[in-house]
């Protein structure tokens, strides 16, 4: 069917098109030719070299902030029936650990009586230990129908966190494979991004009104694997409860392995006001492939002085030491962290025996 257009309408339309074209050209003139790419700035030889070596004179502002950092580790609080909470928190405190978190699968496996909840809160207070987080299992963008089940798991964790007066839960955006720790080739596709955003919208909608922060841990194997993606995720979900559970080492790849001071500056700058807590690990590149391996805190590529300085500028900072093998290693890690903090004047809560 042919549509008849009057002369007046034709000219009006032409004028509008011309205005639109003129506006578009004005906008185009103000916009860089190519969209800005995420990543650290070029150093030199970008036309033939990957930008893997740091520039000289990277700014390292080691001025301590006012925050006193509480340390926690993977000695989780469990809800195992019959737990002696007084002893549990006493031993944490004696070991220099002044905060703790729980793993979701274990924590949600038993409904605690109110009396036990009261007992936990009383013992936390008595030993000056902060229970702050439920660290969630699962994969909220897993192939259906698992995605919905895991979203329900996160919603349950948020309700459990409210019951315990925690500040947050922690999860990942996940993988298109069932196991979130396995990188799927399409994890960076539009489909994966939209599944991630929608999953978090579902979770936020189901828990509307809650004060529990929903912290997302950026991880290399998932779409959210850099601070720019983390920020954009929050914007797309449109809920201020979306925060970052920051694990810098989870975002490291060959291009940043030797540029950690810059990655720290960029990340803390971009994510200002949205870092819920921080994981403390370290790593080295010790293989021919970009093979990164975990290393003792303070001995690898992570710029721990700068890291601790940034953390001390966050309100009520908590740092979670993980991925070590034994109680002895956790104590060693803590000794290094405390020594480095003391060197630059950052305060760590409590003392280590």
């Amino acid at each position: 069917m042919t549509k008849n257009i009057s002369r007046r309408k034709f000219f009006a339309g032409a004028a509008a098109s011309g205005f639109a074209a003129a506006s578009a050209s004005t906008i185009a003139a103000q916009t860089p030719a190519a969209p800005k790419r995420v990543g650290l700035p070029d150093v030199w030889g970008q036309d033939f070299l990957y930008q893997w070596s740091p520039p000289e004179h990277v700014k390292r502002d080691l001025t301590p902030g006012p925050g006193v950092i509480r340390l926690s580790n993977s000695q989780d609080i469990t809800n195992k029936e019959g737990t002696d909470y007084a002893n549990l928190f006493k031993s944490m405190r004696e070991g220099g650990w002044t905060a703790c978190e729980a793993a979701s699968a274990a924590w949600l496996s038993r409904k605690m009586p109110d009396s036990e909840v009261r007992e936990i809160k009383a013992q936390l207070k008595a030993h000056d230990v902060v229970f702050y987080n439920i660290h969630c299992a699962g994969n909220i963008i897993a192939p259906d129908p698992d995605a919905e089940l895991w979203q329900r798991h996160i919603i349950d964790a948020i309700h459990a966190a409210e019951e315990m007066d925690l500040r947050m839960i922690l999860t990942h955006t996940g993988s298109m494979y069932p196991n979130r720790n396995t990188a799927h080739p399409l994890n960076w596709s539009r489909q994966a991004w939209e599944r991630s955003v929608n999953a978090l919208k579902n979770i936020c909608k189901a828990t509307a009104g809650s004060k529990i922060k929903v912290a997302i841990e950026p991880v290399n194997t998932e779409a959210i694997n850099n601070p720019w993606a983390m920020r954009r995720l929050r914007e797309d979900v449109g809920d201020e409860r979306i925060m970052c559970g920051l694990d810098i080492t989870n975002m490291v790849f060959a291009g940043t392995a030797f540029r950690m001071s810059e990655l720290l500056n960029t990340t803390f700058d971009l994510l200002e006001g949205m870092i819920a807590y921080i994981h403390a690990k370290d790593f080295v590149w010790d293989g021919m492939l970009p093979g990164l391996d975990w290393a003792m805190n303070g001995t690898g590529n992570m710029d721990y002085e700068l890291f601790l300085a940034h953390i001390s500028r966050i309100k009520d900072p908590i740092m979670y030491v993980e991925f070590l093998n034994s109680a002895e290693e956790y104590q060693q890690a803590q000794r290094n962290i405390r020594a480095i903090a003391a060197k630059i004047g950052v305060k760590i809560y409590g003392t280590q025996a």
Partner: protein
Amino acid sequence: MKKQFGMLGIALGMICLPAMALAASDFSGSWVRNNAGSDPAPNAMYWLTRGGATMGGGRAAADVVLNVHQDARSLQVTESGSVVRNYTLDGNPHTRATDTRMENAVVTANLQGNTLVIETTQPFGGMPGNATLKIKEVWSLSPDGKTLTILTTRDLPARQQTYKQVYNRTEPTQGAICSAGCVVPH
């Protein structure tokens, strides 16, 4: 004639005097590590906590050769596969770049009687923000000069490690390239 011999003796004495003075603590020579007599050396570069081909920190059993060149004021150490180290034997702190070329180490080397003491303070992995590592090496020779023992203490806030390495005197390998063995000091 007698006078000529006397003068020659004095001249020889003049030449040999510095060497004689150093004799008790001259570590010059080529030394091969005695693996059986040595403690397992920790991984000096990385402290790995999970996985990794070098996990465990043990050094491979391949021969480790030190070539040491010493004069009255300095010591140069070349180890197979390692950076050449130069030390000034004056007991004063000297700053040098770490192997990463990103940070500095402060090194003091001092001959104390029959021993050489080398103390180094540096960021553990030579990276910005690392925990401070203090290394103390005490070198000593056996009375017959055929065995070199290096007692090393590595001090981090997290832990202290002490281990002994024993080296036997050997013949230098002329002309070998560093990555395959060592370069004999000139």
